[in-house]
């Protein structure tokens, strides 16, 4: 019985780390992995989602709707930014670093100036359950479920819908897509908006568990980049398995040697993976398959 509860505890921790990595990274996987925009403002889209979610939840909106509204607002902001700034930099990927870094600083400082150094949170819903000698937060299981649901939703979106076909066509061979009459500008805008909305979703989902401050996005950024770099360009063959592997490594190291070991483990894994598979897990898997 003690063995079973320890096993469950480990799976819970690995699932928790997996959910965090997937939710933090899937927006970035679209914007960085697919579109090639190195988006250092990813954390600020998460911030946007979290703030909108917490504010609407405090105004009385039920939490699921508040999370959704956070995702929608972040997505809209993403589309506006794409139109104003990112659009002009698609052929200059290195410049996107500087531009999005600037956006990130403006967003962080702007939030601090306008909304102050912290926003009141909403409290974590759903309570806890016990297993063996341990007790666990129920909401973390919701997060794991949401991570899986997001992956499934994205899979369906990219493989079963017209938008998915258009987006993949536009991103793979833009001028051919354009020649075939696709409004590629609009597709780019929607795709970037989708990435931002997924970041906003992550922010909204984690808002009830975290301290809401203007710099909260940075807590997600490093792990998101590590996951996307290890995973490579494809969300389903890359981000999802990368998050699963990294989640297990992180949970194991954190449980044995503490948080610092977990973080070092993530970065070391990333270094080794980039050395062995320069194009990430998905690049390796696709080459093996062909």
């Amino acid at each position, binding site marked *: 019985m003690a063995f079973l509860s320890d096993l469950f*505890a480990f799976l*819970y*921790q690995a699932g*928790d*780390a997996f959910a*965090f990595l997937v939710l933090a990274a899937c927006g970035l996987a679209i914007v960085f992995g697919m579109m090639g925009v190195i988006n250092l403002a990813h954390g600020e889209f998460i911030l946007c989602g979290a703030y909108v979610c917490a504010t609407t939840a405090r105004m009385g909106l039920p939490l699921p709707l508040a999370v959704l509204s956070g995702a929608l607002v972040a997505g809209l902001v993403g589309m506006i930014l794409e139109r104003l700034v990112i659009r002009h930099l698609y052929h200059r990927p290195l410049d996107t670093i500087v531009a999005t870094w600037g956006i990130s600083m403006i967003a*962080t*400082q702007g939030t*601090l100036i306008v909304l*102050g*150094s*912290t926003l*009141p*949170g*909403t*409290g*974590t819903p*759903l*309570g*806890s359950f*016990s297993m063996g*000698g*341990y*007790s*666990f*937060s*129920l*909401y*973390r299981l919701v997060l794991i479920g949401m991570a899986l649901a997001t992956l499934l939703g994205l899979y369906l979106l990219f493989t079963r819908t017209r938008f998915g076909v258009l987006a993949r066509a536009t991103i793979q061979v833009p001028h051919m897509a354009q020649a075939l009459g696709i409004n590629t500008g609009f597709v780019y805008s929607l795709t970037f908006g989708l990435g931002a909305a997924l970041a906003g979703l992550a922010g909204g989902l984690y808002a*009830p*568990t*975290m*301290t809401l*401050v*203007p*710099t*909260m996005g*940075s*807590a997600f950024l490093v792990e998101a980049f590590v996951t996307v770099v290890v995973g490579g360009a494809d969300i389903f063959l890359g981000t999802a398995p990368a998050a699963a592997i990294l989640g297990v490594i992180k*949970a194991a190291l*954190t*449980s044995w040697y*503490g*948080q*610092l070991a*977990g*973080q070092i483990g993530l970065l070391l894994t990333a270094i080794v993976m980039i050395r062995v598979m320069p194009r990430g897990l998905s690049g390796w898997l696709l080459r093996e398959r062909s």
Partner: protein
Amino acid sequence: MKKSLTPIVMGMGLLGLNSPLMAEEPIKLGVLEDQSGDFAVATIGKVRAIQLAAEEINEAGGIAGRPLELVIYDTQSDNTRYQEFMRRVLQRDQVDAVFAGFSSASREAYRPIVSQFDGFAFYNNQYEGGVCDANMVVTGAVPEQQFSTLLPWMMENYGGRVYTIAADYNFGQISAEWVREIVEEQGGEMVGEEFIPLGVSQFSQTIQNIQRAQPDFIVTLLVGTAQSSYYEQAMSANLRTPMASSVNVGQGYEHLRFTPPSLANMYVTTNYIEEVDTPESREFVERFRAMFPDEPYINQEAANSYIALHLYKEMVERADGETDRETLREIIAEGDVCFDGPSGRVCLDPRSQHMSHTIYLARVEEDHSISFPHVWEDVEPYWLGDNGCDLTQDNPATQYTPSNPPPGD
């Protein structure tokens, strides 16, 4: 400019003259605090407290006839900014004294620069103790004031099995060393110790480790806003073990920011928080809110910053408006530089240039209201002085720890 004026001012002080021209020469004070970044929640109030004290002093005619002028920089919770701005205030702005720093990492980043330019800096934060440096005055509380009171009380009331979670940098590491030492000295047992990198916001593994170790109470030495996510996560996992801390509530007012009862059963030793119910405290809170109505919480560090400027006033006034560091050290060495402030009477200890404090044991209730089950009056910062740090004799400019104490004599 300042150097060439110093002998003239000194001469006039000796002659008892008070030239109106010299009287108008302002005293410039540098204020380096984090108004943005990870620590901003706890430190914006420190800047405001200095502004409040400066305005009060200026309205009453300045210090020995000299008005105060503040030079304020936002250090952005960034250690390199501290170094950059410390150079700037000492070299370019030529300030007379600096009030600087939240985290111990930032203090250790700027301290060598203060020594290099022979500046005079006030560190107004509670910290892990041990800084024996003649260029520094520390008004914050130290382990012999916060842990030597808190831990025996907790062990008596809850038991001796202790688990520490601490921020992974000099503050957390050295504070955890103090906790370990005191717990073992009192016959208790450390059942776990975990160091968390700054910026970590996900704690479910840590929570599980604590549940496995089953401590009687947890010592939380978490720092910064990311790490304060711990409390709500622990609550939602139903971890209700009592907590003891030297940093929470008194700095980041977590009891007001988080939904009750995430902080219920937390005990903090602090020398001031706005719930302290004395006439002096109530009057201070009233004046503070009159000037800054939107200040969310008047914390321990805000009170210490306010007190620091008044202690400085006391010293400079006794020196007839002279701000030269050597002169001020001689005045500290007299041993009776004191101030009756919002936290009660405090005095500077000449051997360590640290401050005595009344220490309040604050307990957070289920609804997050604060009660004070115990008060220790006039706790001296004795550890450095008793172990051989004597700034009236020499200046090692070093930080000592329990495992690396002063050499002694």
